[in-house]
Structures are given as structure tokens and as C-alpha cells.
């Protein structure tokens, strides 16, 4: 285990003072204290991660009814996934991936362009645009859900009916105030000198954008990427009002249609739930550093 090695320098420094954390739990080192800590931390993990782990276990077990839902596996089986397939869960999963794929692509592109203007250009009306973006963030999606369904059924000027299409689920999430703001903050930090140097060397607008600004904003792209992914994946009301038939459902809104199965019981729900939770959890685990950073910049700067 590399853990003790990694902590050694810090531990030595902290020996002189126990002031790094509020409670100073690190320095409760008696056998009783250690036991209490293990139980406490174990309880936290079980309470918060336990139910999700039980989904993982249950999806591969025979779970005939809710009383069989537990952390302990009983009899490995893939029947749940077969039953889920018969209920069209893979179709729903495909729909979800289409929406999140194109939605995220658009969202990141739109955010990058918008924040390039807001962070690197001085123009009349910039403050007004900023105000508009903040207003959209104040405006809960739930408030506009019903009029949004009216707008989506007949998009003004374009006269398109987006109800029952992928675009109806993608376009409303394609612009997100949060990711524009986070990106803008990062782009502001790119030194003007770098941009000037590139311009002096003859770089045009596109070249400055593509070769100077964008590479320096890669960490921010990680942040808005992982946030955008979880945000789109978590959409519920929007697909609910856009989808007309079951074949258009995304996985989250389809979950309640697969609650139980005559043959395999609740297991089919757990299999579908596992498929619905894995993508966003995996995205979080892969981009955990960016996620934490985004949380901090999102909450602390506002």
C-alpha cells in the first residue's frame, strides 16, 4: 500500500499542530477512537453508496420482489437484462445516449463560442447579455415546462413541430447558463499578452481562438463537459413533455414503466436502473477533479 508513504510528509508536518481540520479527528488515535471512526465512516459509506451498490448486486441476482433487495448477491443471473431487453430498455438507453451525445456536443460548442465573446471581446451590450444569461439561470426549468411544450409544438418563425423528436429534447438543453459562466471565468484568466503575441505574429481571429485560447481552456472544457453530461442525463420533465410514444422515451423516464416483471420481478427494474445510473456515475468518477472544481467555482463565486 502506498498510502502511508504518500501521507508521511504531511503527517510529520501536522504532528506539530492539529489545526488542519476543525475536529482534528486525525489525532484520535486510541484503539476505541479508531474503532468509532471505522464504524462512523463505514456507516456513511453504507448509507449513501449502499443503495446504489445494492442496485448493482440486484441487477445480476434473482430479485423476485422488493423484500429480496439487499447488498448480498444470491444466485448470479442475466435474466434481468434479458427481461429488460424485452421491455425495450436498450432502445431507451440508445435514445438517452443520442440526446446526451448531441446535446453535450452542442452545449459545449455553444458555451465556448459565447464565452469567447464575453471574456475576450469588448462590445456594447455585453453587460446586458450577461444579465440575460443570469436571468435564464434564475428561471427554473419547471416554471417554463408547460409553455415550453407549446413552443416546441410550433417553433415560431421556423414553424417546426419538435414534439416527439430528438431535437425537442436536445435544443432546449443546448444552451446552459452555468457552463457559459464557468467557461467565461476561465477564458478571462488567459493572459491578454498571449493573444496579443499571436496577433502580432499575424494570427487571425480563428487562429487565435483555435490555437491560443482553446488549448488553455482544456481544463474548463473538462468541467463543463462532465457537468453538462450529468445535467442532460438527469433531465426528466423535458423528455416527459417531448416524448409522445414509448419508443421515444429516454431511460430515466422509462424507468417507471419497467417497475416489475411477472417473470423476474423487481430485478428488471434494477437492471434498467443500473444502466441509467452507470453513465453519469462513471463520468463523475473519471472526471472527479474537474467535477469538484466546477462545484467550487459554481457555488463559491456566486
Amino acid at each position, binding site marked *: 500500500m502506498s*498510502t502511508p508513504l504518500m501521507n508521511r510528509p504531511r503527517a510529520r508536518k501536522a504532528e506539530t*499542530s492539529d*489545526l488542519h481540520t*476543525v*475536529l*482534528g479527528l*486525525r489525532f484520535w488515535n486510541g484503539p476505541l477512537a479508531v474503532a468509532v471512526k471505522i464504524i462512523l*465512516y463505514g456507516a*456513511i*459509506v453504507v*448509507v*449513501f*453508496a449502499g*443503495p*446504489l451498490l445494492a*442496485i448493482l448486486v440486484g441487477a445480476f441476482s434473482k430479485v423476485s420482489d*422488493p*423484500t429480496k*433487495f439487499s447488498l448480498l448477491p444470491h444466485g448470479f443471473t442475466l435474466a434481468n437484462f434479458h427481461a429488460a431487453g424485452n421491455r425495450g430498455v436498450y432502445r431507451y438507453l440508445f435514445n438517452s445516449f443520442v440526446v446526451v451525445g448531441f446535446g453535450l456536443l452542442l452545449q459545449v*460548442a*455553444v458555451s465556448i*463560442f*459565447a464565452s469567447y*465573446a464575453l471574456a475576450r*471581446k469588448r*462590445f*456594447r451590450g455585453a453587460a446586458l*447579455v450577461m444579465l440575460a*444569461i443570469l436571468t435564464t439561470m434564475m*428561471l427554473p426549468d*419547471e*416554471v*417554463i*415546462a*408547460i*409553455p*415550453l411544450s407549446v*413552443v416546441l409544438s410550433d417553433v*415560431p418563425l421556423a414553424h417546426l413541430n419538435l414534439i416527439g423528436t430528438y431535437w425537442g429534447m436536445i*435544443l432546449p438543453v*443546448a*444552451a446552459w447558463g452555468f457552463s457559459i459562466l464557468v467557461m467565461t471565468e476561465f477564458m478571462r484568466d488567459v493572459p491578454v499578452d498571449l493573444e*496579443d503575441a499571436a*496577433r502580432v*505574429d*499575424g494570427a*487571425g481571429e480563428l487562429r487565435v481562438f483555435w490555437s491560443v485560447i482553446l488549448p488553455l481552456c482544456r481544463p474548463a472544457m473538462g468541467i463543463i463537459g462532465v457537468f453538462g453530461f*450529468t445535467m442532460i*442525463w438527469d433531465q*426528466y420533465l423535458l423528455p416527459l413533455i417531448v416524448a409522445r410514444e414509448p419508443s421515444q422515451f429516454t431511460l*430515466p423516464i422509462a*424507468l417507471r414503466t419497467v417497475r416489475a416483471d411477472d417473470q423476474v420481478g423487481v430485478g428488471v*427494474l434494477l437492471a434498467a436502473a443500473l444502466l441509467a445510473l452507470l453513465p*453519469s*456515475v462513471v463520468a463523475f468518477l473519471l472526471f472527479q477533479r474537474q*467535477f469538484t472544481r466546477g*462545484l*467550487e467555482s459554481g*457555488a*463559491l463565486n456566486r
Partner: protein
Amino acid sequence: MATPTNYRSAEWQGNTVEVPRQRAHSHALEPARDDEWGAPARKRRRRRKKPQWLIAWLCLAPALVLFTYFKFLPMLQAARMSVYEVRPYLGDRYVGLGNYHDVTTNPYFTKAIWQTVLLAVGTTLGSILLGFVLALLTEGQARHLWLVRTAAFLPVVTTMAVVAEVWRVMYYPSRGGVLNTILGWVGVGPEPFLVSEHQALLSVILVGVWRGAPYDMMIFLAGLATVDRNLYESAAVDGASRFRRFYHVTLPALRPVGTILFTLAALRGLRSFTEVFLLTNGAPNGSTEVFMTLLYKLGLEQGQLGVAAAAAMVLFLATVAVTVSVNVWRRRVVRK
């Protein structure tokens, strides 16, 4: 440094006097020569001429169009619909504030408003308190603490639909249900949870706390990291006990973070939809009916778009009211 680069740097040095002026008017920097990438001088000059404001608006256009169509237009539409009786194919009929009157006097709505407030207050206070305790317990840089934090954070990134479904399973009201089994170990239950009029709302609140607390924990941890460690040290030097240090140094430093979390959580609570929709959908006997589930039923299931729009406007006003009052309160506290 007797290389070709020297030639370029000499040229640079010859220009240094002019640099400030060049920055102010970039076209002053326009010697008609090919640049380093070999782009012809003519092409470069044309690029320069594109005004900055045009580029800015071009870059902003996609975002602004999308916001206009899918945020501002629906908002205006909601405001308009809220004073009409919306009748598809028959034409809308102007009813003034009639829809608002319905929303505020209809017993279903008043009950739903009251329950929404309870839900919002419960989840907000519960998740902030629990999140704060979790943050204090898991503060530190050790690897096992990082693991605990990561595991505890998983509910936040799990989609709400899954959270609600798994809690439905755990709330199974018979003796064998997961939570009833656990309660059985300490000799309590079996409890009916979601199927009881008295426990359903509390059960929904518990789910909200379970999902909200780790989020608040993460933000509190970020806030704790910004607390000046020197203050701890000076407090310790002055002989302050651990409790006094916590009370006089840590708590004040966390107040801004706490205010933000309070606002965010309260707003989230007011518009909670998915968890209620999936856990109970208002049942049993309307005891968990909240604003959004009622609004959804009215607007999308019964087609009473006007009343639903009025309800949405009320919710929007409540959102604005919470935000504004928190900000006013915060400013007053700061001024004192």
C-alpha cells in the same frame, strides 16, 4: 544566438518603442510582409478589418437564439397564458386574474402550496445540517477520507429517476422491506412509509435529504478549505478551546457558503418534481401533492393550460422572492 531567430528579435527590438501605440490601434501594426506562417499580407489585412463587436455577436448568436426560443419565449408565453382560458381550436378567452384566483383559493392548490413549503424547508434544513456534519467528519487529506467522500457523493450524480425508484423499493411497506427489516432490528415497525398519509411526505423529505446532503457536504468542504489556518493557530495560541475555535472562527467563515446553499436548496425544494412524481405522485389522498406535480397534472394531463401557467408564474414569483429576500438579508447582515 547568431541564428536566424536573432534577425527576428532585432526586428522586434526595433519596434519596442511603438508597442503601446500598436496595442491601441492594431492596424498601425501592418507592415506589408508575409507573416511567419506564410499567409499572404493581403489576406491578413482583410482579416484585421473585421470589427470586434461583429465577431462577438456572431459568437453569441447561437446561445442567444437558443435562450430566446427555449427560455424567454416560454416565459413570455407563460405570462400571456396565465391571464387567458386556453382553449385549443376555439380561441383563447381573456379571464384577467381569474386563473390566479383559482390557484390561490382552490383547496387543492393551497394544500399543495403548504406541502411544497414543508417539503422545501424539510429538505433544505435536513440536507444542510447533515451535509455540514458530514463535511466536518470527512475533512482532511487522508486517502480513506477521500474514498468516504467519493462514495458519499455518488447519490448526487445518480439521476433522480433511479434515486426515486431505488427508494421506492427500499420503502416497501411490508415486514420484509429493506428499511422495515433494519427498523425491525431495533424493534420498530413495520412502518407503511409512502402508503401512509402521515409518513409519506416525511419519507419524500428523507429521500431529498439523502440526495442533497452530500452535495452540501462538498460545498462546505470547499468552504472549509478557504478558512485561514493562521486564525486557528492564533486562536489556539490565545488558549481558545476547540469548541470556541469552531464557534468563532469556522462558523463565521462558512456563513456565505451556508447562505448560498440555503438559497439553492430552498429553490430546489420549491420546484421539486421528479422525486414526488415517481415516489408517490401526490398519493396517498393528496398528502404529498406538491406544486409541480399538481401543475403537471393540470397542464399536461387535463389540458388546463391557463391555470397551469398561472401556477407556474406563482412559482416563479416565489423563486424570485426567495432569492431577493436572501440577498437583502445577507446585505443587511454584512452591513451590521
